[in-house]
């Protein structure tokens, strides 16, 4: 398959990239890992006259620990995020997402920014980004904005990024003590698969009162975008972290929060049932981890 002809731009700084994006706007696509965009270009699903590659901008592939948060550059690859000690220790659900995306070859190229901008409802890192309350950092020439991840996705393949903007990375608050998280993705096979359902859960409990004081549950592949399970979260908040309350929350996620469709990967009914199973399992493991934290 031949790639169509395009002009290739390889800026060395964010400023240079923003200038290009300002000048070229909708006539340019941002190239990060290329594991989706190059395929879409080959299949003629996407057309563009210009590619702006971000891979030579070192600042965009950094993972840095700040006081209360970490910064993950948009061009950090899945393999790189998986290797990061701070991610392995404090962001286990994100590590699981990165460990499970595509296969070992794809993970060496695919980036977290690309996974977010591609905005697939089934994206492997997206439920984790949602439950860690990530903030997307967007820049355009001379302007910056921060978008809570819950407002980032606007539809399948669509996000709130404007034509002159570039996603530079994410800021994730460091989870507090007595909190834990877990991610499970369900597919037809383990490797090189698009998820049928993927769920991530986060919970924090008060060791004094033994009640859940914060919880975030995110569902993938069961709506037009990855979504937060608001009713399930409300059902669990203030409850004791135990099997009965995890089950009650999972039932809310299954019945009220998800809106799956039938497709060749699975039926809506199967997806809905699995939302219940995976919500309960991820909450139970998140709590085990919270106890150990």
């Amino acid at each position, binding site marked *: 398959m031949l*790639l169509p002809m395009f002009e290739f731009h390889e800026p060395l700084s964010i400023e240079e990239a923003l200038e290009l994006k300002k000048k070229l706007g909708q006539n340019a696509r941002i190239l990060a890992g290329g594991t989706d965009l190059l395929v879409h270009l*080959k299949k003629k699903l996407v057309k563009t006259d210009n590619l702006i590659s971000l891979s030579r901008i070192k600042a965009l592939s950094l993972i840095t620990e700040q006081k209360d948060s970490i910064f993950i550059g948009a061009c950090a690859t899945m393999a790189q995020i998986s290797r990061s000690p701070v991610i392995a220790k404090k962001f286990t659900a994100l590590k699981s997402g990165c460990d499970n995306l595509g296969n070992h070859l794809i993970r060496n190229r695919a980036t977290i920014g690309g996974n977010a901008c591609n905005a697939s409802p089934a994206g492997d890192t997206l439920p984790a980004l949602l439950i860690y309350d990530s903030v997307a950092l967007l820049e355009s020439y001379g302007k910056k904005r921060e978008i809570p991840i819950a407002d980032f996705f606007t539809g399948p393949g669509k996000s709130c990024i404007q034509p002159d903007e570039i996603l530079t990375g994410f800021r994730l608050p460091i989870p507090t003590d007595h909190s834990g998280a877990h991610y499970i993705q369900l597919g037809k096979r383990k490797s090189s698969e698009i998820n049928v359902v993927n769920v991530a859960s986060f919970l924090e409990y008060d060791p004094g009162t033994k009640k859940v004081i914060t919880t975030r549950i995110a569902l993938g592949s069961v709506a037009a975008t990855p979504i937060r399970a608001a009713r399930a979260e409300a059902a669990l908040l203030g409850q004791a972290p135990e099997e009965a309350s995890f089950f009650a929350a999972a039932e809310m996620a299954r019945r009220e929060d998800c809106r799956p469709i039938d497709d060749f990967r699975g039926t809506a009914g199967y997806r809905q049932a699995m939302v219940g199973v995976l919500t309960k399992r991820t909450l139970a493991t998140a709590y085990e981890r919270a106890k150990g934290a």
Partner: protein
Amino acid sequence: MKKIISLTINDQSHEIAVEPNITLADMLRYELALTGTKKGCDTGDCGACTVIMDGDVVNSCLVLAIQANGSVIETIEGLSTDEGLSPLQEAFVEKGAIQCGFCSPGIIMSAKNLLDKNPNPTEDQIREGVSGNLCRCTGYQKIFEAIESQRS
């Protein structure tokens, strides 16, 4: 417009003028006649085009040649020496891990990279380490045994 890139392939430096829309796989095959690197799906699903780029395995069909400017690339052609095949390649022959051979260069590059990074991988790590490489002939068990035999 063509751009001149310089890169190291199997310990040899090259300067090549490439169009921006040429992938690394196509450059290796059609510009340098390194046809050991195969093209199966051309969309990053099969792993036949696996090469090692700056120490990590990648699908060379999903890397633009121009993105490999300044990189160090290892392909299947770099494995054998004047004395013959590398021990890993020999193991593939001996264990019957090759039938039609189309996936072999990619799988051997994945296996080499795995063993370079982790000389003593577990069973799961071996399976994970070639999980992006499809084989339609052998059913993978012989491939697994060939890699397993090369553990230190």
